[in-house]
């Protein structure tokens, strides 16, 4: 097997060398890595911004910046984290890299379009950067761009929503590629119920990306037109409706929450069985709950708007639907835990990160019930409770799933192992810092501290100080994990093809994979999580 060159040394299309082999590549694996570098860059930028925000809030009054700067920074933090980190992180990096391999094929259905999506992604990011340093500075509207404020604001709203528009295109094209690859490129012998759950979750996500993203694109176009031409679409004095904007915005942005979390759920559904050496419990229920979440999650958007002035009938309907979308998520959590029952569990960094995911995601889901219920939501809406809740889901959930995926697939992507001990230390520090960071925010919210506040009433100071302290701990943990992985690139310890004893197809090919993924036609298992054949050799293979 060693004779086959990896995708790092052989280019697709053939004959390209040096930087061209990357910038003009059609290879889904190279594109996955190119997304990895770009996404990590943005993650670090937004993380630093987040830390600056929390530092400002550690004491009452001015700490390190003024209100204008603060308002721009939380907007920037939101825009970057959402459009440039959480949405693309798992699908664009790990989805691109592993979806074709898990389906037993050599690339996505539209490789050139895949390259184009990457350029759109970079382009969108550059647009956002340009918006930072031109005109009257970065928007101070919050990532939600609510009208009429976003129409009146003198800041660079137009350029920033254009950036989000372009990033939306990139996301849509990636989704299109995944759906077509799923249907047209899948190994002929692989039936629907033989597809790995990570790929299933990406498939569900891809549909939401394709169907929901146009709504936000249109909405952003309307904002730009409103700014340029003052049509009055959202102005009641001229027959418009400001609440219409909120409906349009959340019609995408709530399903987008599922674009963010579904792939993370897919990652955890891969990792738990592998390290339990036991089939995932309730495979079909997990597949159906993914599709269920994608469909039902598209019908709950106005639960962001209970206080917006919409009718009580709408409030009733959207609250009821919101509670129903909680069920498939609960089913997944139960299935993951049940998978470990009578398993043979080996602790590794990806498993530890997945367990932390289950805990933090559960907190996120359960605090979501408080927000789904109408009477309680009225009190905590737009407070720090909401901020903590969605960070539990987006960071405790998707963020930790991203870290788990990185530690799980690192040996496959780069062909090297990393030391476990620093990864454990980093993971625990991050989790402990996370709780110190966000639990005080839950309490602050219940006490009534609004979000997007530059300054606050004196009773909220202790909580904000504690949260800031936790934020630093959290970032130290992340740095430990990233440094550990980066150091493994220098002190290379070669990884075997299957270091974990896993069953899905990406572990049947060399690490790192050759340019066409499969050396021989892969054997398709009747059930992708049949661990009966997995011997006890994986742990010894590794050491």
């Amino acid at each position, binding site marked *: 097997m060693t004779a086959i060159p990896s995708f790092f040394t052989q280019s697709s299309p053939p004959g390209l060398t040096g930087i061209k082999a990357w910038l003009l590549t059609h290879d889904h694996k190279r594109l996955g890595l190119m997304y990895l570098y770009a996404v990590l860059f943005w993650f670090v930028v937004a993380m630093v911004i987040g830390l600056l925000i929390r530092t400002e809030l550690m004491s009452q009054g001015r700490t390190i910046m003024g*209100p204008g700067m603060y308002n721009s920074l939380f907007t920037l933090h939101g825009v970057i984290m959402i459009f440039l980190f959480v949405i693309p992180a798992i699908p664009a990096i790990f989805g691109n890299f592993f979806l074709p391999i898990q389906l037993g094929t050599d690339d996505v259905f539209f490789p050139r379009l895949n390259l184009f999506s990457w350029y759109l992604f970079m382009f969108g990011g550059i647009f956002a950067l340009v918006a930072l340093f031109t005109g009257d500075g970065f928007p*101070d509207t*919050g990532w939600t761009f609510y009208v*009429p*404020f976003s129409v009146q604001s003198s800041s660079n709203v137009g350029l920033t929503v254009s950036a989000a528009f372009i990033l939306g295109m990139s996301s849509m094209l990636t989704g299109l590629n995944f759906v077509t690859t799923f249907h047209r490129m899948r190994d002929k012998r692989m039936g629907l119920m033989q597809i790995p759950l990570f790929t299933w979750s990406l498939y569900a996500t891809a549909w939401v990306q394709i169907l929901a993203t146009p709504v936000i694109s249109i909405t952003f176009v309307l904002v730009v037109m409103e700014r340029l031409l003052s049509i009055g679409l959202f*102005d*009641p*004095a001229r027959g418009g409706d*400001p*609440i219409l904007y909120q409906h349009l915005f959340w019609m995408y942005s709530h399903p987008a929450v599922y674009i963010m979390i579904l792939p993370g759920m897919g990652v955890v559904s891969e990792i738990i069985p592998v390290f339990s*050496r*036991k*089939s995932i*419990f*309730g495979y079909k229920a997990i597949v159906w709950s993914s599709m269920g979440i994608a469909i039902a999650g598209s019908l709950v958007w106005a639960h962001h708007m209970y*206080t917006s*002035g919409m009718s009580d009938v709408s*409030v009733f309907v959207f*609250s*009821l639907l919101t*509670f*129903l979308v*909680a*069920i498939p998520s609960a*089913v997944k959590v139960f*299935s993951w*835990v049940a998978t*470990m*029952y009578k*398993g*043979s*569990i*080996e*602790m590794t960094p990806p498993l530890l990160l997945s*367990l932390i995911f*289950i*805990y933090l995601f*559960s*907190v996120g889901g359960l605090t979501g*019930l*408080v927000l*789904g*219920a*109408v*009477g*309680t*939501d*009225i*009190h905590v809406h*737009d*407070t720090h409770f909401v901020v903590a809740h969605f960070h539990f889901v987006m960071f405790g959930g998707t963020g930790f799933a991203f870290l788990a995926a990185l530690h799980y697939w690192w040996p496959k992507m780069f062909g090297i192992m990393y030391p476990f001990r620093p990864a454990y230390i980093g993971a625990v520090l991050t989790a402990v810092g996370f709780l110190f960071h966000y639990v005080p925010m839950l309490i602050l919210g*219940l*006490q*009534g501290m*609004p*979000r997007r506040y530059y300054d606050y*009433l004196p009773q909220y100071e202790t909580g904000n100080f504690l949260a800031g302290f936790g934020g630093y701990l959290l970032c130290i943990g992340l740095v430990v994990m990233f440094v550990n992985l980066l150091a493994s690139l220098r002190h290379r310890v070669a990884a075997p093809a299957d270091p974990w004893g896993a069953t899905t197809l990406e572990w049947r090919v060399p690490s790192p994979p050759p340019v066409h993924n499969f050396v021989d036609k892969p054997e398709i298992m009747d059930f992708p999580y*049949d*661990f009966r054949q997995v011997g*006890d050799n994986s742990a010894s293979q590794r050491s």
Partner: protein
Amino acid sequence: MTPVQGVDLAFWYILGISVVLLFGITAVMVYFVVRFRRSRHPVASDIRDNYKLEILWTIIPTLIALSMFYVGWHSYLGLRAVPDDAMNVAVEAQMFSWLFIYENDKESENELVVPVGRAVKLNVSSVDVLHSLFIAAFRIKVDAIKGIPTYAWFYADKVGEYDIQCTEYCGVNHSAMVAKLRIVPQEEFEAWLAEDGN
């Protein structure tokens, strides 16, 4: 039961069940990881599903979720049902202050004064961008929108001072858009109302 008690009951109900569920999930997860670690349990069983269990853990959470929905909705009704004898105060939000206008046209900036023992209906609107009126002590919050009237009400049951905050981001001084609610005895309120506005 006052609306505040109704909302608090909903909080206790939802948070109480959530804590039990979270504790249960976490405890079982940790127990499995320890009990079935590879050194102690080297060969895994091949269990793939159990339809009875799966149906059970779909139906029971559905029932719990529906009960939470009901409790939440019921407490919301309390926040919406304004008593007939409520005193009306118009609230105008603007960047970055609150204007309270009484029925005798008295205007008060950033200070809402009401008599104890009265239900108070706040008729909310905005003169510019979106704002949101939030009185944490009474669990009420409603957006202030230019051109679309909204309302909230509370029962002023105890003399005291309470915070009013803006909870819809409205610009550079959003966090400074705070006001005070003072609940005072009837006579003091009448005297205050008769004073000339600024």
